[in-house]
């Protein structure tokens, strides 16, 4: 309803793929579950549990479908990373602020992602477990400085206390929409819509969503 007016007649739905990267114990599963499980959305949990989750959003009148792909953090599966993050629009790289090692792993992934996908992908570096601030081993300056140096955004979250998670995803969505719109403009509007490549925008007909993520974000922030 709100979408119908806000979208200005365009029934375009953005579909974005977001990969979730991070070592085993950094809490990425809890993070994404917290985001998708909140009281408005518990029906969106798929039968694949926390491995693959979807979420529908409505941002400034535009519909967005998020597909969140969890990846295995273990070393022995690293060689298989590229097939997971190909065609991704965004990546969330999670580390544990109490574990220096997990931050080093994030740096490796950033390098690989940039190498494979260039600047098309929106990167978010996330320091999780801020509820354990006392045991922090990765300094705020270092992590934020690093994020800026590689063109990523940095966030602090606590899955346990549900802090910072809504903002993280909302922000990421907005950035992905900007990227997609820029891409559209570059291609020239109109004809490009139908021929849009594998990644990015798809036109899907589905019923307008009443729930707005923006509202949820404000209340929790």
């Amino acid at each position: 309803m709100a979408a119908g007016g806000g979208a200005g007649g365009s029934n375009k739905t953005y579909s974005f793929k977001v990969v979730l990267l991070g070592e085993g114990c950094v809490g990425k599963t809890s993070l994404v579950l917290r985001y998708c499980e909140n009281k408005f959305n518990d029906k969106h949990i798929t039968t694949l549990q926390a491995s693959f989750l979807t979420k529908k959003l409505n941002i400034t009148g535009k519909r967005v479908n998020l597909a969140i792909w969890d990846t295995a953090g273990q070393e022995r599966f690293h060689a298989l990373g590229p097939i997971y993050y190909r065609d991704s629009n965004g990546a969330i790289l999670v580390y544990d602020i109490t574990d220096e090692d997990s931050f080093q792993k994030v740096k490796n992934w950033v390098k690989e992602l940039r190498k494979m996908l260039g600047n098309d992908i929106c990167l978010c570096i996330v320091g999780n477990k801020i509820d354990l601030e006392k045991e922090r081993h990765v300094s705020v300056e270092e992590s934020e400085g690093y994020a800026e140096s590689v063109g990523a955004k940095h966030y602090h979250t606590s899955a346990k206390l549900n802090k910072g998670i809504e903002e993280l995803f909302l922000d990421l969505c907005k950035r992905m929409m900007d990227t997609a719109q820029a891409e559209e403009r570059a291609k020239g509007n109109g004809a490009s819509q139908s021929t849009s490549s594998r990644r990015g925008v798809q036109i899907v007909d589905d019923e307008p969503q009443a729930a707005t993520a923006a509202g949820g974000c404000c209340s929790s922030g």
Partner: protein
Amino acid sequence: MAADGGMKPLQNAMKLAKLAIQLDAGNRHKEAYCEYLRSINYISHALLEDAESIEEGEMVAEEVEKMLKLAEQCLERAKSFIGREESLSAISTTTTLAEPSYHSTTATSVAVCPGNVVSPQDPDTESKLNSSPGHRRALSDGGGGLSPFLPPEVFQRLQTIEPLGTRKELTPIEEASRLNQKLKANYEARLARLPPAQARTQKTSLTLSFERQMMENLIIAKARQDALQRKMEERRLRLQEEANRRFAASGSITAEEPEQRVLYTNVLEYEQDHDWPKLWKAKLKKYPDDVTLASGLVSRLLSCPDHPVMKLLKRHQYRVYNRLYPIVSKCLPASPALSIKPSHSTQSLSISGSRRRASESGVGHSLSSNASLNMTCSNEHNSSTVDSGCDGHHTPNRENSFEDLEQFLSQLDWQPCHGDHNMTFEPSHQVDQETLIKDLEMRALKDHLKAIVKDIHNAIDQLLSLCLLSFECLNTANSKDLCLASIEEAFFTPVWGPLLALFRKVHRQRELSFESSMTLYRDASPDAVGVSPELYPQDPAVLRGSYPYESAVQELRLLSRDCCPQKKLDCIVRTLRVICACAEDYGSLQEEDSKTASIGADDLLPILSYVTLRCELPQLVSECAALEEFIHEGYLIGEEGYCLTSMQSALQYVESLHTRGFQLHNSKLT
């Protein structure tokens, strides 16, 4: 499998034989001869497949006996032509001379021999035939070597059989021929009834009047035929213009457009002759939101073998099959009666193929430590050598007494070995040469595969657009998906077997790695591949005799049963769901209040790796590689895409397992 509704081999064989008999009765000797041979070929192929399949034969003894009997009869008939072999072609030409008007039109054998008309095939079996003639079996036993496939000609015959008897409307000339048959019978009867005294005087006049009548009939028929043809021509032009207008309106001009235009003209023509498209269009216009209507229309369309969309589908299918066949059919005994025309490049491929396999089995010996792998390699080696022997030996002994046959066969056993030895190079260069040759072959195979995949994509695109052009009412997001799914299912079902065989050739090394890991880890417990101990019961009693995640393994094993990418993809999704459900169940069994959270990829991938190991289907590697090519873009980002990606990762991990050693998994556990 039963749901697929493929026709029984016996029914197929009978169908082919019937066709042969029809041709035979119609004095089309050469064609009949070939058709008999084809029947025999099909029967032996079907029986062989049945006899070799690991599971108990699907055919009952009675059926086998009938098949053999049928083959015997076909052989008898075929033999009866041999005496006339030289005159095979001559016969058909002389009969043509004798009754020019009958034979000048095609497919008039019905008219010539009304007594022998085979009852028209019921449309029910017709449509069943379209679904799958017997390739599901080729697929289901695909675990071992390559199973032989039907030669393209037989394949096409089974796909598109349009029995001569089913023609509902006869052309005027055909009608006249029928009439003349009756006249002739009358004439003969009357001649026979004539008392001997009058025979001489009356016979002349009877004969004359008979001939005059026949001639008249034919002349009238010819005139009618010409008029009809003119009318059809006019109609065709009119429809062509309509098609042109339609395309002019749409604006864009592409390279494929002329072809599309012709196809669309065919559609218009079809719609003039058949009412159902109009009726369905009207219905859909009335209730545009009724989903069942759209699916009804699509299945109606698929059941009409003479609709241009379906004709195009069969044509593409045949083209793809024809390109696959020379590469994947090496186990098939070469039959001189079949004139397969492999292109130059594929021929060279298939010749060198057997050499490649020979060298591969050598590699297998040196690398692998397990017996079963060696077995499969050497088996394949044998089969390839035998058929290369067949290739070289086109002249079987004339008098087919048993001893001769035995001797002939023993020759076959020995010859190829010499042949192979002659082919080898100097020992010092041998390795280099062979790796070079192997590389070149692999590259050629990959190129071939890529080209075929592209062909298939193009074919399906063209089919979908023609389908939507024919039924604009289906051009909505939902109906379009439905169309595509149905077209794909119809398209892939009969060709998946050979297609997969090509993928397996290309991915042979990967499958071998998978097999090596499989034999190493077959009986390993889940934690050997890194499954966290909380995610499966430690107490064997809980599992009641099975092993962890058995239900997921069972589900995954069903993958090779389906013959269409979308269904296979669904099977993978179900497998992952079952894994998640199992993990949750096992979690709830744990007494400690270590609340097992929903599992993420960290847990899912090790479990999935364990499940694929337990599944013991090396062809999963190739199946998934094929799915990767044919998954819809729209699904790539969703649950299906995620599941396929996870499956690919698990497979890759399993392939690498046998080179890693057991202890590696301990390096990093969650």
